């Protein structure tokens, strides 16, 4: 690094941040080692019947990348503006050059008590032109602004000859663990999450936007899963990624077993906190927005199978995109092929199964975390699951 050119300096700082944002390197208070956590499937609990993709993640959909930037710093009493910090940002990149090569998308609101920006364009055109960012509620404006910084750096024509996009940013509430008022995210964290975005296995649990989240009164966070349709149905992949922050303990169901009722202990100190989940679906099946909106509703059914009732305080917002249809700007007309509705039920099954498993993966992978004022979110005790499942004949 010999040049002192401001751009290269910025890039240098960005790379530093990428390095420091690797969540596994960060020290934080936890009760178990990372190796004691496993994904649901590794515990022998299989949701549904369709096979998963190679990584059982949203990144199994070709072209989709996921990146995280995680901030876990400090402990003890809340000092607004100083911490403890328990937040981050997760980004889903639907494909390369998304601003000029849009993919189809649709959204659905199961319960509106939340925020997902940038959906006006999705509603009016059925197209997605932005990466999808997930973060905590108070950081939403910061992440919008950071997303816009990325857009303007990547596309110098924005604000000059190209109109200004609105980044898609969704949130859930981190107030039990995080110094929400202090926010603690800036442009560089958003840029770091994007720089970290890659295909392959996805880190889950206490990572990115999921750091401060609670699920069924256990530690929640990011989870993902995928399903692959039979070759008779085109062999397409359906992936789901969730930021899970919802549910009351007694509601939790795992593969039809009322696990939550069987684990009444390990409760967080109950404060007034919202309960929300953001669900993002992806597929390479060529689907138009009306089909994708139907898949959103099947993600809602997958959510229901984990026991959720979508409570009033919950922002349960869903978005599904397909990068199997790509529309390039300025093309007059584009020939597309679309999925046959008469064969779509398998896709419904895929969306529902992947959603149920993604939520449970978030629970299974997330580790116990201590946040502001010593507030403790306990991890789902995996060692108790075999006996509970056995009790219900599973």
């Amino acid at each position, binding site marked *: 690094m010999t040049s002192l050119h401001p751009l290269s300096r910025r890039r240098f700082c960005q790379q530093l941040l990428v390095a420091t944002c690797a969540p596994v390197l960060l020290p934080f208070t936890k009760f178990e080692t990372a190796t004691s956590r496993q994904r649901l499937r590794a515990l022998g609990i299989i949701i549904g019947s369709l096979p998963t993709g190679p990584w059982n993640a949203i990144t199994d959909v070709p072209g989709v990348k996921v990146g995280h930037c995680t901030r876990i710093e400090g402990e003890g009493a809340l000092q607004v503006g100083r911490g403890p910090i328990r937040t981050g940002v997760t980004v889903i990149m639907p494909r390369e050059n998304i601003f000029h090569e849009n993919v189809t998308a649709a959204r659905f*609101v199961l*319960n*509106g*008590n*939340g*925020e*997902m*920006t*940038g*959906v*006006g*364009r*999705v*509603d*009016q*055109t059925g197209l997605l032109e932005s990466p999808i960012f997930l973060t905590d*509620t*108070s950081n*939403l*404006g*910061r*992440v*919008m*602004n*950071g*997303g*816009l910084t990325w857009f*303007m750096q990547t596309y110098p024509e*924005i*604000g*000059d*000859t*190209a*109109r*200004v996009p*609105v*980044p898609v940013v969704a949130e859930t*509430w981190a*107030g039990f663990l995080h110094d*929400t*008022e202090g*926010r603690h995210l800036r442009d560089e964290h958003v840029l770091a999450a994007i720089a970290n975005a890659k295909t392959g296995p996805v880190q889950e649990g206490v990572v990115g936007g999921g750091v401060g989240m609670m699920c069924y009164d256990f530690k929640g966070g990011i989870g993902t899963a995928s399903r692959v349709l039979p070759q008779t149905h085109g062999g397409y992949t359906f992936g789901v990624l969730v930021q899970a922050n919802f549910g009351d303990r007694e509601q939790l169901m795992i593969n039809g077993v009322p696990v939550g009722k069987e684990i009444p202990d390990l409760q967080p100190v109950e404060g*007034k*906190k*919202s309960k929300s989940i953001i669900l993002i679906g992806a597929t390479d099946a060529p689907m138009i927005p009306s089909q994708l909106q139907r898949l959103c509703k099947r993600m809602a059914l997958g959510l229901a199978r984990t026991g959720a009732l979508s409570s009033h305080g919950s*922002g349960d*917002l869903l978005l599904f995109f397909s990068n199997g249809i790509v529309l390039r700007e300025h093309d007059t007309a584009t020939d597309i092929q679309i999925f046959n509705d008469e064969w779509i039920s398998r896709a419904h099954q895929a969306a529902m199964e992947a959603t149920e498993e993604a939520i449970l993966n978030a629970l299974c992978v997330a580790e116990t975390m201590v946040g502001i004022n010593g507030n403790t979110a306990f991890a789902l005790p995996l060692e108790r699951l075999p006996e509970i499942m056995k009790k219900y004949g599973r």
Partner: protein
Amino acid sequence: MQAIVLQNSITDVRGVHFGHFTLASGDVQTGLTVILPYPLAQRNRKLFLGSFAAGNWNEWTGLHVAQDFGTFSSPIVLCNATTVGIAYDALITFGHQREPGLPIDNAWPPIVIGLDDGYLNDLRERRITHDDVLRTIQEAKNTPMLCGSVGIGRGLCAFGGKGGVGEASRAAVIGSERYVVGAVLAANGGLVRNSETSAATSLAPSFVLLIATDAPLLPEALRRLAEAGMRGLDAFGLAENDAQQLALAFSTTNVIDNAFEEKFQLFKQQWLTHDDLSPLFHAAAESVCEALRRAVENAEAVTGRKGRTLAPIAWQRIVEGVKP
């Protein structure tokens, strides 16, 4: 019937406040306009809201609560397209200052609407700050607002000439009651046929209108009021490909106060069941037309990005120029 002296302002609807912030410096010609649905001192209040959108995409934050529950409690901020995140963040601060948990009856979720003022304003310079937004909210007034090239109107471009922001109000009599309907319009689109004016246009032309009323309307009727207000613009031939039109309408009368109290309660409301709500709809359409006229007539010439200058365009020319 109450005698109300109207000042042709959205602030004729009692409780409604507005704030302008204007930033005019070289290539930066932009601003903010903020509408407060009720005074700052009022806490834990939800109002009902309806929305109507037409044309191309219409981005506004806070729409999930507004559309699913039909309520809102946030100041409404109109700003340029690259300030949306900053304005949102300022409203998060505003919300935290009111109540750390950001409940939906105490200013969350923020409602921010972005407009493209890039013809005159360098959008890549994000010069409006978090503190500018907060201060504009805190200094909001309930007097008639300045119209034209102020606030969000500073960099706007309409009908090939200088656009702007305008407001107006009208009374509407339903049964034995007299209600007030007020509108604010940000004019940032439109074409004049066979005109000698420049082909100046925003990359994302838009008309954003906010309608306030003291008529006790619930979300369904407010959506119709928003649509009626937008229909007021139909006379100006706004069916451009890229034109965004977004209308939000809210009522200050049917309020939900202290919904988070730890006791079961029902909320007294009035449902305006009169067969004919047309006077309200006409009042909305007329207010919007009048707000457009005042936005354009009060606009002053502005020179901004790339040395471009937009001069005011005569109202009569617009009226003549949009005829088929």
